[in-house]
């Protein structure tokens, strides 16, 4: 293996050296320490010999190869001992008794800080590990927490402590380090208090004002009077929310007019006439799983943040002030509302149970599999059937028409139990009240606030 190592006196590079002479090494401040003192990393000895190795050499594990059997060794000494077995001439190099120049190594990666000789690292193993860690591929993965490492020793060290010592906050977040745990708790305590206080508030309000409280209008009102902690989440949420659907809009628009498909240069996998298709296989194999995984991870993170949000603020629909919900999300929500209602009045009761079911719907919020899609369509079916089964529903809806004639007519109709009613309407007064409640919150917020 060609060692593309070349050594240069540190003096001629970087130019930070005060005394350029090599012949007379400057006496070190503590000349003969009992124990070798360790410099700060990246602050090498001024007159040390700088060695720049190529990445290949750096990463090579077995540089010394036996000619006979091609067995590789990390050290020349080991190779020599091995050669004895083949009855080959061997020679163990003695440690030179001349003054050995200290060697420091620089990182071959040009963009790296340690590429500069003035920030060279003092140890060959050190530079190897650094190169792997920073510029290498992370091949080692912890089984417990899926953290990845490029250097095996790092991985081993981590897996020893992974999961052993953990701090857990009340909000459920885990920490392995005490300092980060404490920092978090400082914030979290505040939030914990808020949620405790609010739950008690919300509980009372839920009991008394089933229908008026949990509409988004109501939320907006409550959000204002509530704690600063909540808007924090509220503002955090829209970012997450819109994170998935619309991340790279500018880029997306750019490609819209371009004839991507036709121009061979842009088209993946068909560049170079597909001659490299087999090569591009290998490339894409490594690229794609990351890409796909990233999408999954993004979604996973999004879901985690969503579920933590929901678990923190059980009754907060603080996304009322977020970007508009996607249509699919709205449909799911409508289906949930339709399935959780106990009596057929659509808006009245279901808004009341909306908040309590919201924490259940959170996991299915953004990422609904096709199973849940069919589930929701079933629920929507139920919704549909229930509304279908009660054709007087829309007449109740038309109560929203302030047109007094229609209102009077529908009321009359329903009181008398006429029209295409198939079932008796014993709960009409309740529904009326509920619709009234909706009307009050929806359209007449001044009354709502006065009711608080």
């Amino acid at each position, binding site marked *: 293996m060609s060692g593309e190592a070349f050594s240069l006196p540190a003096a001629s590079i970087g130019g930070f050296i005060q005394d350029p002479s090599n012949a007379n090494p400057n006496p070190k401040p503590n000349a003969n320490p009992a124990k070798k003192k360790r410099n700060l990393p990246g602050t090498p000895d001024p007159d040390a010999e700088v060695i720049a190795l190529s990445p290949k050499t750096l990463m090579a594990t077995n540089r010394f190869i036996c000619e006979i059997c091609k067995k590789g060794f990390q050290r020349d000494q080991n190779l020599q001992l091995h050669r004895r077995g083949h009855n080959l001439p061997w020679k163990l190099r003695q440690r030179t008794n001349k003054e050995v120049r200290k060697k420091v190594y620089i990182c071959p990666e040009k963009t790296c800080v340690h590429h500069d000789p003035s920030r060279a690292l003092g140890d060959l193993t050190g530079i190897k590990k650094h190169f792997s860690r920073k510029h290498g591929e992370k091949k080692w993965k912890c089984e417990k927490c899926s953290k990845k490492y490029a250097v095996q020793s790092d991985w081993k060290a981590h897996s020893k402590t992974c999961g052993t010592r953990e701090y857990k906050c009340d909000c459920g977040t885990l920490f392995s380090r005490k300092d980060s745990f404490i920092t978090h708790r400082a914030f979290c305590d505040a939030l914990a208090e808020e949620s405790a206080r609010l739950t008690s508030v919300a509980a009372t309000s839920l009991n008394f004002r089933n229908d008026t409280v949990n509409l988004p209008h109501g939320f907006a009102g409550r959000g204002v009077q509530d704690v600063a902690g909540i808007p924090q989440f509220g503002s955090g949420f829209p970012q997450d929310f819109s994170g998935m659907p619309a991340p790279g809009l500018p880029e997306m628009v750019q490609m819209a007019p371009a*004839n991507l498909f036709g121009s061979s240069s842009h088209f993946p996998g068909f560049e170079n006439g597909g001659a490299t298709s087999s090569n591009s296989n290998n490339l894409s194999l490594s690229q794609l799983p990351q890409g796909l995984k990233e999408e999954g991870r993004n979604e996973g993170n999004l879901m985690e943040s969503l579920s933590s949000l929901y678990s923190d603020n059980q009754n907060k629909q603080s996304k009322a002030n977020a970007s508009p919900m996607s249509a699919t999300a709205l449909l799911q929500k409508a289906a949930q509302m339709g399935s959780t209602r106990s009596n057929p009045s659509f808006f009245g009761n279901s808004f009341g149970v909306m908040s309590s079911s919201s924490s259940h719907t959170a996991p299915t919020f953004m990422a609904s599999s096709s199973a849940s899609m069919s589930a929701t369509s079933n629920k*929507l079916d139920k919704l549909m059937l229930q509304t279908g089964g009660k054709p007087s529903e829309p007449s109740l809806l038309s109560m929203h028409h302030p047109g007094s004639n229609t209102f009077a007519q529908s009321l009359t109709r329903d009181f008398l139990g006429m029209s295409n009613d198939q079932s008796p309407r014993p709960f009409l007064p309740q529904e009326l009240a509920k619709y009234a409640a909706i009307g009050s919150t929806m359209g007449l917020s001044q009354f709502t606030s006065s009711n608080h």
Partner: protein
Amino acid sequence: MVPEGQSFVTSSPLQFIPWMSFSPGLGSPFPWLRELKSEERGLYLIHLLVSCANHVAAGSLENANIGLEQISHLASTDGDTMQRIAAYFNEALAYRMLKAWPGLYKALNSTKISLVSEEIHVQKLFFELCPFLKLAYVITNQAIVEAMEGEKMVHIIDFNCFEPAQWINLFQTFNARPEGPPHLRITGLHEQKEVLDHMARRLTEEAQKWDIPFQFNPVVCKLENLDLESLRVKTGEALAVSSVLQLHSLLVTDDEMHKWKVNSPSMSKTDRSHRVLQMNQRTLGEWLKKEPVHAYSPSSDLASPSPLSPLSLAPAPKMGSFLTALRALSPKLIVITEQESNNSGSTLMERVMEALNFYAALFDCLESTVSRAPLERKKVEKMLFGEEIKNIIACEGVERKERHEKLEKWILRLELAGFGRVPLSYHGMLQAGRLLQTNNYDGYKIKEENGCLVICWQERPLYSISAWRFRPYD
């Protein structure tokens, strides 16, 4: 008139409702409607749509009219996603109601000028703005290249030939084959002659560049009127078929006729098999060999409003005969891309619900992918999706061409018709993934299911791609 004594902690809001004192006419937008936030409005719209569809299905046109009116106050083709969806669904429901007065309907539709160039333009927009067609083409081409390994004469039939990029892509891949490109013939189908002329020019020009012996045969016709003879398939050539979002139009059937037939009381096995014979025109022996009894369940979904049982296929005579004829050509590969939705249920409510879910995902996807080209997006929404929605909701019988079925049903149909599955390779999936990545398409996913690929938007499957080949009866 208004009941009282309701236990509310708040003072009874009833007296605050100035329903009685407001009396604007029915036509004016109500102030409180404007105060609705986007989410509430969206939910309200969904509810309105569902209840209006119920009325339309039940035939109570008065109530449906009120519903349409309410929806049109809230819906808008320029509003947010749910508003736009509601606008198109509203229009579709209105068309459906209009058909109750055939004279009105015909008179209103008679002076429509359908601009062919606009339709073609919209198809191109859909190709450019969304990755679905590109993905379908990539995967199709990959499957073709793999299936045609070693073949010297390749004949490809394209059921909707309008985008030259689809095949130019294939030229490049074929050119790079180790054994060199095959002799390639492409037969393109389309309803417009101009489109095929354009294709012919572009493709011949590109084929010369890539040094591929090439021949293009245009066939101007509709898929359902296709005479397979006109495809001029020669013996000895390897045949591949690419069907992107076309095959479902063959599922049209005269629903009325079949509804009536299915409701016949006794369902012995021979009766069933007879019915199958009539409906699908396959040999009895072959049908009895398999056990597709479960496929034609006596409780057909045609009449009852219950959700479709997963394995019951709606009968489709046209599809049956078409597939039989196609099979007779012994194709080496058929790649079918279809919408992953279940619109062929014959009750209106089922179709409305399914379409709501499907098009909601499509609209969301379009919104997120193309939010800065609103005019183009509107065109695609109106002329492509809107027309599909209209067809699904307003049309019945043979007019209803947009009969989407889910992958599992396509699999069933094709297997029954004598085709064997060709699993789509991992390489194809990778290429599709790379396309998504390089062009920064976010939110899309490609899932593999049983050798078929499904393109999803945010976990909602939207399009399915499957590959088939001629399978000899064993």
